C-alpha cells in the first residue's frame, strides 16, 4: 500500500497543488490572491502533463546523431524489447492503442504471439507493473514498453511500427520513421506534452495578465480589491439604481 502511494508521488503533488489552488480560488478574499490560486491550479496541470510526457530514462527529445550516446540512455532497458523502446519512448501510448484497436482482430496475437486477451488486460498489467516499481524516477503509469516487456512481446515488425506512426501525433511520426534504424535505441521523453504545456503556460500567463489588469482597473474604480467590499459596493449600486 505504501509502495502504491509512493510510486505515484508525483501525482500526489499534482493533486495537492490542484486542491490548494482551488481552495485559494474559492475561499473568499483578495482578487490578487484569487489569481495566485488560479495560477497554482494551472501549475498543477503543467506538472501533470510533464508527468505524462516523461519516459523512464528518456532524454530531451532532441535528435542525437552520435550513436555512442545510446549506451547512456538505453542502459536501463532490456534487449528483448529494444525496438519497442525505440519508438515507444516517443509515443508509448501508440503501441498500446494500436494493440488495443487491433487486438480484437487477433492480428497482434498472431504475428507476435503475445498473450494479450483484451485491451483491459494491458492496462491491468500496466497498473500492477507500476505498483511493483519503486525507484525514485519519474514514472508514467501506462507506458507500453513496460507492458510489452512484461508480456515479453517481441519487437513489432516494421509494418506495425509504421502503422503506429501513422496513427500517432506529430512527434511520433518522427521517431517512427527512424525506428527501424539504429538510432531507435535512443530513448526520448515524449515531446508532445512538453509542447502542449508550453502552449498552456502561454495561455496561463495571458490569463494572469488579463486578470491582473482587470484587478488594477477594479482598484481604480472601486478603491479596493477585497471581494467582500466589492460585493457590498455592487449591492449598494444596485439598490441605488432601484431607488432612482
Amino acid at each position, binding site marked *: 500500500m505504501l509502495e502504491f502511494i509512493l510510486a505515484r508521488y508525483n501525482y500526489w503533488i499534482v493533486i495537492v497543488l490542484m486542491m490548494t489552488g482551488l481552495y485559494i480560488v474559492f475561499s473568499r478574499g483578495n482578487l490578487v490572491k*484569487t489569481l495566485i490560486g488560479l495560477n497554482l491550479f494551472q501549475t498543477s496541470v503543467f506538472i501533470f502533463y510533464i508527468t505524462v510526457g516523461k519516459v523512464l530514462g528518456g532524454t530531451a527529445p532532441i535528435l542525437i546523431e552520435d550513436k555512442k550516446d545510446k549506451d547512456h540512455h538505453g542502459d536501463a532497458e532490456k534487449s528483448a524489447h529494444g525496438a519497442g523502446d525505440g519508438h515507444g519512448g516517443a509515443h508509448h501510448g501508440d503501441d498500446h492503442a494500436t494493440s488495443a484497436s487491433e487486438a480484437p482482430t487477433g492480428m497482434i496475437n498472431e504475428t507476435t504471439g503475445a498473450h494479450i486477451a483484451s485491451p483491459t488486460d494491458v*492496462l491491468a498489467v500496466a497498473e500492477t507493473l507500476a505498483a511493483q516499481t519503486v525507484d525514485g524516477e519519474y514514472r508514467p503509469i501506462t507506458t507500453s514498453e513496460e507492458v510489452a516487456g512484461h508480456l515479453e512481446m517481441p519487437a513489432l515488425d516494421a509494418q506495425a511500427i509504421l502503422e503506429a506512426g501513422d496513427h500517432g501525433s506529430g512527434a511520433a511520426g518522427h521517431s517512427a520513421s527512424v525506428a527501424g534504424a539504429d538510432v531507435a535505441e535512443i530513448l526520448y521523453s515524449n515531446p508532445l506534452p512538453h509542447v502542449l504545456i508550453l502552449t498552456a503556460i502561454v495561455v496561463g500567463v495571458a490569463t494572469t495578465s488579463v486578470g491582473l489588469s482587470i484587478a488594477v482597473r477594479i482598484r481604480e474604480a472601486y478603491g479596493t480589491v477585497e471581494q467582500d467590499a466589492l460585493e457590498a459596493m455592487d449591492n449598494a449600486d444596485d439598490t441605488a439604481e432601484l431607488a432612482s
Partner: protein
Amino acid sequence: MLMDDLPVLPIVLPLIAAPICLLLPNTRAAGLWATLVAWVSLYLCTQLLGVIVATGTVEYGLGGWASPLGIVYRVDLAGAMVMTLVAAMASVTFPYAIESARDEIVPSQTSAFFAMFLIVFSGLMGVVATGDAFNVFVFLEISSLSTYTLVALGAKRDRRALTAAFTYLVLGTLGATFFVIGLGLLYQVTGTLNMIDIHERLQGVDNKVVRAGYAFIITGLALKLAMFPLHRWLPAAYTYAPSAVTAFLASTSTKVAIYAMLRFLFTVFGFSFGFAEVALDFFLVLGLVGMFAASLIAIFRKDVKMILAYSSVAQIGYMLLGISFGTPDGVAAALVHVVNHAAMKACLFLAVGAVFFSLGSHRLSAYKGLAKTMPITCGAFLIGGLSLVGVPLTAGFVSKWVLIQAAFDSVLAVPTLMIVFMIVASSLLAVAYVGRIAWAMLLEDPPAGVTAKPLPALMIAPMLLMAGVNLYLGISADGLVDLARAAADTLLDTGLGFGGAR
C-alpha cells in the same frame, strides 16, 4: 487554390485582421474593417457549408501536414452550421457595434475593442473547425481571454462590468483548466490528440482514467456553456458588457461551447462508451432544473438585460435536454435551438442595446411606454420576445415543436409526458418574464420628460434584420430542420461505423 483552404480561412482571416484593426485611427474605420472581415468570413462560411452539404465532412491539414503529423481541421455539417451562425452573428453585430461603441466605450479604446471582437470571432470559429482536441482548448482560451476584456470594457458605463469580467475570468479559466486535465488523461490513454484517432483508440476502452478524463472534459465545457448550476459567471457578464458584446456573446459563445460538447460527446467518445450515459442523465436532470430555476430567477429581476441573461441560462437547458435524449432527433432539436436561440437572443439584446443607447438604461422601469417613444425597437423586441416564448410563426416555436416531438419519440427513463410538461411549464415562465417587459412597454405610460435619443440607421437595420430572421425561421423552418437532422446524423454517425441511439 483559395477554395481548398476554406475550412481554415474564416479563422485565419479575422486573426490576421485583428492587429490591423488596432492600427486604424477611429471607431468608424475600425468598425468598418471588422465588419468587412466578418462579411467575407460569412461568405466563406456559406461556401464551406455548401461544400459540406454537397460532399460531406471536410478535412484540412494545417500547413499541409496530413493527419497523424499535423493539426487537422475537420468540419462536419453541424460544425459548418455553427460556423455560419457565428459569422452571421458577427456580420450583424459588428456594424451595430460601431454606433453603440461610440456611446459605450472610451474613445481611445474603440480600435482595441474591435480588434478584440475579431479575436473572439476567430477563436469561436477555431473551436468549431478544429479536429484536434488540444486545439479546441487553445481556441477556447483565445476567445475567452478576449471576451473577458470585452466584458471589462463595459466599465465606462457601469463599473460592475469589471467585477463581472473578473468572475468570468476566474470561472472560465477553471473550466478551461478542467478541460485540459481531461485532455491530458485522454492523451495518457490514447497517445493522440486527433479527435478521430482518440475515438478509434477509445473503442471498447473503459477504465477509471478514461472516465476521469470524460468527467473533467464535460465539466469544463459545461462551465464554458453555462450549464446550470455552473452558470454563475453568465448573468453578470451579459448584463454589464457593452450592448453589442452581449448580443454577440449571447448568440455565439455558449452555442460554440455546446457544439464542442456535442463533438466530445459523440465524435470523440461516442455511444460505445457506456459511461457516456451518465453525462446524458446529468444533462437531462440539470437541463430541466436549469430551465425552471433560471426562468424563475428571471421573473423577479428588475433589469431587462439580467432577465434575458437568466433566460439564456434557461434556454441552454433546452439544448442540453435535446442532447440528453441521445437520439438524432434530440440532437437535431438542440441544433435547431442553437440557431433559433441565437437569432432570438441577438434580436432581443440588440433591441436592449438600442434602448440603452436612446434612454441610457436597461432597467425595467426605463421600458415604460416604449411602444410610444421607440416603436421600432419595441416591435423588434416584441418579435424576439414572442419567439422566446415560442409563439407560432416565430423561430422559438419551431424549436419547441421539434424538441417536444423528439421527446415524444425518444424512450427515456423519466416518463416522456413528464418531460414534455416540464418543457411547456418552463415556457410559461418565459411568458411571465417576457410578459412583464411587454406590459411595461405596451400598457404603461412613458415617464414624463423623457426624450429618446434618435437611433442611427446602423443600429436599427441589424435589429430589424434579426427580427425578420426570427419570423423567417418561424415560417420557413424546413431548411433549418432538415439541415439540423442531417447534421445530427453525421454527429451521431453511422458513417464512422459506430453510434446508434441508446
